[in-house]
């Protein structure tokens, strides 16, 4: 690390005096890169525990003593839960005698941890579902407008440029953080074996956050925005986000400090760091008057890509690392691979944003650095993929029984797919075609929807029964949701990938008029609207099912209403 800093200092000196030539830049970049990479490896090695210990105890902390081998899948109906346990037992013939001896104290403690977060997590999830519906409606409207440009044009707030922005912001600051933070608030007390402390701060924080988002979307709709992609909401409202976010983070810090476990599980690394990374990104990006011109563009994509890579991605990866082994009742295979995956992501992902400006008027060394780090992202992605594959190997039957696993399994696969695709998209040769086209939009949705949203759906299916003490009333609706959104994103991604590629090829061919690049995309834009429509239908099914569970409708009508249940518990305690 020190070496890397020295190199950067050296580079600064050179730029300061304007003596940079191509030779120097390459040499500096290369040496800075090699040195920081070596430093990273040394750092990771210093963090590992038991390099040759394949069954690392560190991966087993999510289970109570004696609990390994016992599946947990509250989202499935009773019969399916038994089926899941049976399938896992069959694959685990060698490890007989599981479950019965699980430490009762620790299970009781987990129940207490769940109870301490229940009303709070429920509130986060309600906001998440509401924003999901808002974002879906805005997204579908924007999509249709691209092939029906004279539809809904009389109102300024419905124009493509605004409704598209409303879609992005409702996802980026509504659905994704509300779902992701809600899951973190549920998982962290479980992992630290400590009830959540100071939940009321997070309540106030969430209220402020949502108020900020309503104000932000209102101002975007009214045509008041800061003009930067991903950062449109005016900075004055951004202050409210910062305060709300800090209040949401407080209980997690309190709980961390007062935890009863020694070892921090992988999911805690991701979730904890995401909570510390986001405020830095947001505050630096929103500093009024600090950024200008081309430098602002570089900052814009440093933020735009890091909010994905250092906030949504870690929250979703943390969920995979927790729920996947929990559902199948087996710990993650390799602790060392998860270390490599985590620190690799932390190091490489932060520097990839410059690939959004390939061919643009920004410093060439910055673009090159971002391309290199984009390719290096293959390392942490491979570490994650191999780890999950090894854990699931021979236990794929679990996918049949567990809705949580189906969503999270597909989500994990899409992480690998979208990351590898992203790495190659950063290469100049491919970027020359795909940059500025709908191909990029398809890629973005593979990441934020196919990966992040799928994982969040799966986690919410697991968490809701635990915090409401109710089963999902209609298991078939979970299947309907899954197949609608899976078909939807498949159609969405395929059509934009093909359409975007053709668009890029047309634009690169100087002998074809520009309008060719528009005409060629039309059938694909229409197909995208169909895919988007399927996704919206899936969300409506999900929302209806969520409401049915919350209100106690459907087969489990005899259960008490949610609020009475919580307040009743409080009175009893």
């Amino acid at each position, binding site marked *: 690390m020190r070496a*890397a800093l020295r190199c*950067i200092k050296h580079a*600064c000196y050179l730029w300061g005096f304007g003596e940079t030539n191509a030779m120097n830049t390459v040499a500096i970049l290369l040496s800075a890169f090699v040195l920081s990479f070596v430093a990273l490896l040394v750092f990771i090695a210093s*963090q590992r525990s038991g390099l040759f210990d394949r069954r690392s105890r560190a991966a087993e902390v999510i289970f109570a003593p004696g609990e390994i081998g016992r599946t947990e899948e509250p989202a499935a109906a009773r019969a399916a839960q038994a089926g899941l346990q049976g399938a896992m037992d069959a694959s685990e013939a060698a490890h007989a005698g599981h479950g019965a001896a699980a430490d009762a104290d620790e299970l009781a403690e987990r129940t207490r941890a769940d109870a301490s977060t229940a009303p709070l997590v429920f509130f986060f999830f309600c906001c998440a579902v509401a924003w999901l519906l808002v974002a879906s409606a805005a997204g579908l409207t924007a999509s249709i407008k691209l092939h029906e440009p004279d539809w809904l*044009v*009389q109102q300024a707030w419905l*124009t*493509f*440029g*605004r409704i*598209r*922005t409303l879609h992005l912001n409702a996802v980026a600051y509504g659905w994704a953080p509300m779902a992701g933070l809600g899951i973190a608030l549920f998982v962290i007390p479980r992992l630290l074996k400590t009830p959540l402390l100071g939940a009321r701060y997070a309540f106030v924080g969430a209220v402020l956050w949502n108020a900020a988002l309503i104000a932000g979307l209102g101002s975007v709709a009214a045509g*008041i*925005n*800061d*003009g930067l*992609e991903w950062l449109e909401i005016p900075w004055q409202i951004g202050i409210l986000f910062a305060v709300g976010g800090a209040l949401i983070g407080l209980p997690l810090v309190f709980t*961390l400090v007062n935890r009863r476990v020694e070892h*921090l599980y992988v999911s805690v*690394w991701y979730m904890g*760091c995401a909570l*510390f*990374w986001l405020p830095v*990104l947001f505050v*630096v990006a929103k500093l009024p008057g600090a*950024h200008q*011109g*081309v*430098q602002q*563009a*570089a*900052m814009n994509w*440093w933020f735009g890509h890091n909010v994905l890579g*250092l906030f949504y991605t870690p929250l979703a990866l943390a969920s995979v690392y927790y729920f996947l082994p929990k559902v199948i009742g087996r710990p993650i295979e390799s602790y060392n691979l998860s*270390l490599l995956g985590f*620190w690799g992501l*932390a*190091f490489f992902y*932060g*520097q990839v944003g*410059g690939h*959004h*400006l390939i*061919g*643009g*008027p920004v*410093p060439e060394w*910055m673009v090159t650095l971002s391309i290199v780090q984009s390719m290096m992202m293959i390392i942490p992605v491979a570490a994650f993929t191999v780890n999950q594959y090894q854990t699931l190997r021979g236990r794929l039957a679990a996918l049949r029984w567990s809705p949580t696993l189906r969503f999270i399994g597909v989500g994990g696969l899409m992480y690998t797919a979208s990351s590898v695709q992203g790495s190659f998209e950063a290469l100049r040769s491919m970027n*020359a075609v795909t*940059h*500025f086209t709908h191909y*990029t939009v398809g890629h973005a949705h593979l990441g934020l929807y196919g990966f992040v949203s799928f994982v969040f759906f799966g986690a919410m299916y697991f968490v809701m029964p635990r915090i409401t003490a109710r089963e999902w009333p209609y298991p078939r609706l979970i299947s309907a949701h899954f197949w609608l959104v899976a078909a939807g994103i498949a159609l969405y991604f395929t059509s934009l990938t093909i359409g975007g590629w053709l668009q890029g090829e047309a634009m*690169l*061919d*100087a002998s074809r008029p*520009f309008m060719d690049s*528009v*005409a060629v995309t*039309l059938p694909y*834009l229409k197909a995208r609207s169909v895919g988007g429509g399927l996704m919206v239908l899936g969300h409506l099914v999900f929302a209806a099912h969520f409401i049915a569970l919350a209100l106690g409708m459907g087969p489990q009508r005899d259960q008490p209403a949610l609020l009475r249940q919580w307040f009743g518990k409080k009175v009893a305690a």
Partner: protein
Amino acid sequence: MNSEIRLLSGAMVMLALATSALVVLPYLEVHDAPPLPGLKPYGSAELRGRAVYIANGCVYCHSQQPRAKGFAPDFARGWGRATVAGDYAYDQPQLLGTMRTGPDLMNIGVRQPSEQWHLGHLYQPRAFVPGSIMPSYPFLFEAKAQADKGDVVVNLPALAAPAGRVVVARPEAVDLVRYLQSLDRSYPVLAAPATTP
């Protein structure tokens, strides 16, 4: 990993590295890039028009960064030479863009200087560019029985005009067109060498 302090300090060092590479160093290098000699600051109507451009999200379909000839045929399409940092000295916020659902606009003022063309095109793009998927912006205009004194009347092809009414541009539309007309980076990047007599 057992220590949250070690975890978080490691994580923040990683972010600090990324921030120095993508925020601090570009800040040192190009934040104060001086405007190129041929670049004029925006006038007040142009700035108001720029605000209309931002409010309606034009940037989500139009880039403002022609690329070099070796990279893409942007120059051959008439979009202009590759831009440099000094071309954006007055741009606050920057509007480089990441999509080309429509063409690059960095030199639209050179390519299409006509106010009437722009106004008509904003009112109904398909009346001027067949096959265009740009939204129409009727809310930037007003259809009246007859124009008042000082109104900017838009001359539309018969098919696009509302029957029996004249379309006049609202001030936002006029300002937006002023801004589009001002987009001109056709001056040279390098100053001509000084000639000594």
